[in-house]
């Protein structure tokens, strides 16, 4: 009998994961290629390490506190306007860090050019990651658990703190991990603020000293930090099971806030969103109008806008598909190796776009020369957007993966088996059971990727073909020449277009969505069974 061990799915998953992770292998290889490279710049490393630590601790704590507090506020309390404040708090996702920094610099905020300034900017712009995930976790908690806590003598607040929060911990930590990866990979913000993180050191070494190998070595160090973060996050999650047996998916009734508390609950979030979204938009709007009036508009503006939207839309289709393929492969093959490989493929998110771009252009260039030699296709990969899509895939797979995988793992394997017992083959199961149940996850993945690609700069800069300028590039080009008015209109467009998917995402993860997910949790203890089916019943 053929043993049911290695199977086609595992191999497929491993191959795909390898394809995505492959360019990143080039990074540690640089140590082999030019072993002494980094030592010339070793003076940069301690400073970069120090700044990175400050950033990790500061942004980690900041987003954790801000995101969790806000999520708890809107999940457990009721106050006038909660309905739309709830979604307004997600809007900062559409604001790229470098745009907000421009705004802050333009206003000459004192002390912003410092580590503290960078931590503040990142916290304000990245807290939505924690907020979204924590909120979803809170909403999916069953009333009975909190009531059980109350029955054991805890006050409402204590119940939330000692039961609600820990139960939401994996979601919260997941959000913090995402926020930290964004912060570490960012270049624009830290560069403008003069904070020398690893990405800043990489920029110096590569862009100015032109030493690609040393830059890749620094990038390898950066990846190690990211990996360490991911491992810590997994460890923190521990072996506990966090899925509640929400028998009926009841949601705990919220606490009504009155008087001062209600006022604060309304004003504080609004002020936050006003600061991070409305104010910069207004300023950009003013500058945009000035630029139009003074005729400082970039001529290829329309093309850039079209390209941005096309690239973002196509990526929003391709990257989630790849994530589904990987996630599904990992699930179907039941092999630990496949699941691990799939997760490794997401590491690209923790790298600065410029590093991904360099790591990608070398193998792509090699590959395209081979293909050209055979088929005479010229610059098939780097001369078209194909190479760019590949870079986006490497860079953003993590986002899509997170959304898709959490949806997929929430589908108990028993549903797969039930469907198969009823005559559905693997593809049928995917189409009729998984896709409908993962719809929210898939759409969230698509929207996240869309927003990110709209904002993406360094990989696009390097890999775009001749006609491939985007809005982000237009912003960058104008900014490097201090032409703020010219930069403002494309920047404004990036933020506005980014707001649409963010708003859509919010709709999706609204209360109805949470109810449906809670309903899915009805069968959640099938997961317990799943653990046990490996051992005979």
């Amino acid at each position: 009998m053929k043993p049911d061990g290695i199977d086609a799915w595992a191999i497929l998953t491993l191959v795909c994961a390898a394809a995505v992770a492959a360019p990143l292998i080039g990074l540690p290889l640089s140590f082999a290629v030019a072993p002494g490279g980094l030592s010339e710049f070793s003076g940069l490393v301690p400073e970069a390490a120090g700044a990175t630590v400050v950033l990790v601790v500061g942004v980690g704590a900041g987003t954790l506190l801000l995101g969790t507090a806000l999520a708890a506020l809107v999940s457990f309390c009721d106050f006038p306007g909660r309905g739309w404040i709830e979604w307004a708090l997600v809007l900062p996702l559409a604001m790229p860090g470098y745009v907000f920094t421009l705004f802050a610099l333009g206003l000459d905020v004192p002390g912003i050019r410092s580590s503290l300034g960078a931590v503040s900017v990142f916290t304000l712009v990245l807290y939505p990651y924690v907020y979204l995930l924590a909120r979803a976790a809170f909403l999916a908690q069953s009333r009975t658990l909190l009531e059980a806590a109350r029955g054991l003598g805890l006050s409402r607040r204590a119940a939330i703190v000692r039961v609600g929060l820990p139960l939401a911990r994996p979601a919260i930590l997941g959000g913090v991990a995402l926020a930290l990866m964004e912060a570490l990979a960012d270049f624009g913000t830290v560069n403008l603020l003069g904070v020398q993180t690893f990405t800043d050191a990489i920029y110096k070494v590569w862009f100015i000293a032109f030493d690609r190998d040393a830059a890749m070595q620094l990038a390898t160090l950066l990846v190690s930090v990211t990996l360490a973060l991911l491992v810590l996050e997994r460890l923190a999650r521990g072996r506990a099971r966090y899925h509640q047996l929400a028998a009926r998916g009841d949601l705990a009734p919220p606490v009504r806030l009155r008087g001062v508390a209600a006022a604060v609950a309304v004003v504080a979030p609004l002020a936050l969103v006003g600061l991070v979204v409305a104010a910069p938009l207004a300023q950009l709007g003013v500058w945009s109008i000035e630029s139009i009036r003074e005729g400082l508009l970039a001529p290829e503006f329309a093309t850039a806008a079209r390209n941005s939207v096309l690239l973002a839309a196509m990526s929003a289709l391709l990257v989630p598909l790849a994530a589904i393929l990987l996630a599904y492969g990992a699930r179907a093959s039941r092999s630990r190796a496949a699941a691990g490989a799939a997760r490794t493929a997401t590491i690209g998110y923790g790298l600065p776009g410029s590093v991904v771009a360099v790591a990608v252009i070398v193998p792509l260039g090699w590959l395209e020369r081979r293909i050209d030699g055979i088929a005479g296709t010229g610059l098939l990969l780097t001369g078209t957007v194909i190479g760019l899509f590949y870079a986006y895939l490497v860079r953003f797979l993590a986002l899509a993966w997170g959304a898709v995988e959490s949806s997929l793992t929430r589908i108990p394997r028993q549903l797969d088996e039930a469907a198969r017992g009823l005559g559905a083959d693997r593809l049928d199961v995917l189409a009729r059971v998984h896709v409908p149940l993962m719809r929210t996850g898939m759409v969230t993945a698509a929207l996240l990727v869309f927003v990110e690609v709209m904002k993406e700069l360094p990989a696009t800069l390097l890999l775009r073909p001749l006609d491939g300028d985007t809005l982000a590039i237009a912003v960058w080009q104008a900014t490097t020449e201090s032409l703020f008015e010219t930069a403002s209109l494309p920047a404004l467009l990036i933020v506005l277009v980014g707001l649409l998917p963010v708003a859509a995402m919010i709709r999706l993860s609204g209360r109805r969505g949470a109810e449906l997910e809670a309903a899915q949790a009805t069968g959640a203890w099938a997961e317990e069974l799943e653990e046990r089916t490996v051992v005979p019943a």
Partner: protein
Amino acid sequence: MILIAGGVLVVAAFVGVVLATSGSSDDELVIYSARSHYGEEQPFEDFAKRTGTSLRIRGGSASELYERLRSEGDDTPADVLITVDAANLWRAKEAGLLEPVHSPKIDAAVPPDLRDPDGAWFGLLLRARTIMRSTERVGPREVTTYEGLGDPRWKGRLCLRSGTSEYNVSFVADRLAKDGRAATERMLRRWMANDPDILGSDTDVLEAIADGECDVGLTNHYYLERELADDPDFPVAPVWADQQGRGTHVNLSGIGVVAGSDKADEARRLIQYFLQAAEQRVFVENNHEFPARGGTDFKRDSIDVQGAGSHLDEALRLMDEAGWN
């Protein structure tokens, strides 16, 4: 089945996007330019009108263009490379990305130290990086040398652009090549001892001087020209540094023909055109740099492209050690 139909649609859309975003460049002259993107269209438009050749310009930073050219190899669509900063030109030549041009006419238009001896690149425009002073609070003779910015009287009154700016790095590299490590390090440490405000751009430095946050700074001169064009009463003036010494530090914006281009003749014509006195004037009017052809009316330091280029690494490290972020 739905899945197959969906798959076909996705593939079709993908191909569509790829085609829509990939322009072809068969009959155009393609220019990879690290120069400023805006406000510079004039000379290019003039050339296009004159010769009927359409131009395609790809912007980007020097290192990105450099990486692309290396990756593209002979298949590159690029015909012309324009960069700012002499060191970039040196790198490009070292990497074999430029094709030598042998044209006595072009050689004659540009002074020898502003072009590559082998004809790989030619200087287009010059930019001076010099001392800027507040007209309201600082007299014209209070500081006249770069070292002078390190004088303790400027403590708390000095503004500098960030250490990652390639202009600053080039400047330091140039000093290293000409003055050696000890002298350059001394100068930098004295600058840093004055506790300078480190700002994000040259424009920020100028505005800080104008606003009174500091009194002296170091910037490229054409940024000041831009401010003055907006506001003739802008209270900052340049001090051409080291006039008694070697002369003010200048950097070069250069142009070369890309190796592997199939339109070398057109490219040569473009270079020649840009180096014509008339066009140089157009450039200068637009962005206030100095023409390579005409030079400056103050004493300028010579340009040692090789020296500056080969000292970039050391410059970076030195600036980092000195604390110039």
